[in-house]
């Protein structure tokens, strides 16, 4: 029994099982509480606590799944290429607004946690919070933060932006469909883009382009910007 609980195969299977359970529940009742990722995470944590198995033991199986985040980031090159082809005419505007948004995101994420004296681990993990999860994990770990912590901040920004994003953009008078989707993708990655897609194909395409470009812009700027902010506010 003990050897089974330590087997990576068991934990890979358990992860699949809870995620698929979430998918079934979510398909029947479309409430956020049954989102497959939430059911997957809660289910695995629940089982670990129940069986008294350490997180480190789970990781031997979990890392096998998380390994595929690497090629998934590379795969984002395809939507980046295709969406940019569609929106080429607005190319310079798209590049300038994503650079400004990425910088604004980094500064406004890092400064509050720095000023309120949160540990460095929190600061480094907060920096890439608007970026899509797989890139955020890499950027956070490169800065000296923690991938899991970064992933949870990313999810918080995703849900928040998905809920209040359209309202904020409406108040600011952003009516242009490209700008609407682009802002949602930049602030709230996949969740924001799913919301943008509800208002049309153009907004959805802009959102998925924003995910890719914000990932690139933030990975490039993060090390220098975070170091500078530490010098100013740390």
């Amino acid at each position, binding site marked *: 029994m003990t050897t089974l609980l330590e087997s990576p195969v068991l934990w890979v299977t358990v992860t699949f099982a809870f995620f698929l359970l979430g998918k079934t529940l979510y398909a029947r009742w479309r409430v956020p509480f049954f989102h497959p990722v939430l059911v997957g995470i809660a289910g695995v944590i629940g089982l670990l606590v129940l069986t008294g198995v350490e997180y480190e033991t789970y*990781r031997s199986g979990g890392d096998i799944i998380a390994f595929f985040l690497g090629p998934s980031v590379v795969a984002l090159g395809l939507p980046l290429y295709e969406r940019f082809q569609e929106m080429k005419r607005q190319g310079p505007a798209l590049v300038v607004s994503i650079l400004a948004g990425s910088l604004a995101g980094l500064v406004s994420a890092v400064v509050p946690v720095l000023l309120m004296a949160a540990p460095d681990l929190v600061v480094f993990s907060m920096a890439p919070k608007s970026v899509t999860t797989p*890139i955020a994990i890499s950027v956070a770990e490169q800065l000296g933060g923690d991938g899991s912590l970064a992933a949870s901040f990313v999810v918080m920004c995703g849900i928040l932006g998905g809920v209040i994003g359209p309202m904020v953009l409406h108040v600011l008078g952003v009516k242009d469909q490209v700008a609407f989707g682009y802002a949602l993708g930049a602030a*709230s990655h996949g969740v924001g883009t799913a919301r943008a897609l509800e208002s049309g194909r153009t907004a959805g395409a802009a959102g998925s382009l924003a995910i890719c470009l914000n990932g690139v812009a933030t990975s490039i700027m993060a090390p220098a910007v975070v170091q500078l902010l530490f010098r100013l506010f740390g």
Partner: protein
Amino acid sequence: MLGGIFYLFLFLTAGEILRSAGIPLPGNVIGMILMTIALSTGILKPERVRTASNTLLDNLAFLFVPPGVGIMVHAQLIRSHWLSIAIAVVVSTVLVLAVVGVLQQWLGGRRQHDHAS
């Protein structure tokens, strides 16, 4: 499909090599940039990587579960710093929405106007 997975790993490996050679970006992001360049220059046809890329991206959420489980280790940390975390998340999300939305509408709209005139 298998060929497409090969290309993804090929770009990932190239990215990791360039990262260890001193480029200050995650290897997977460098790999994504390399693949975009290969697609834009016509070296790589999109059809070759379409099935593999879409299969991974369509199921991306599943890959978030293991990192998500890792949060159990940091539950205490989040609890003791919840206020600064909440402020950073709210302020930053609203600011990114505003900066990108307003700037893109202004710059994008002006460009369209230039074309018209």
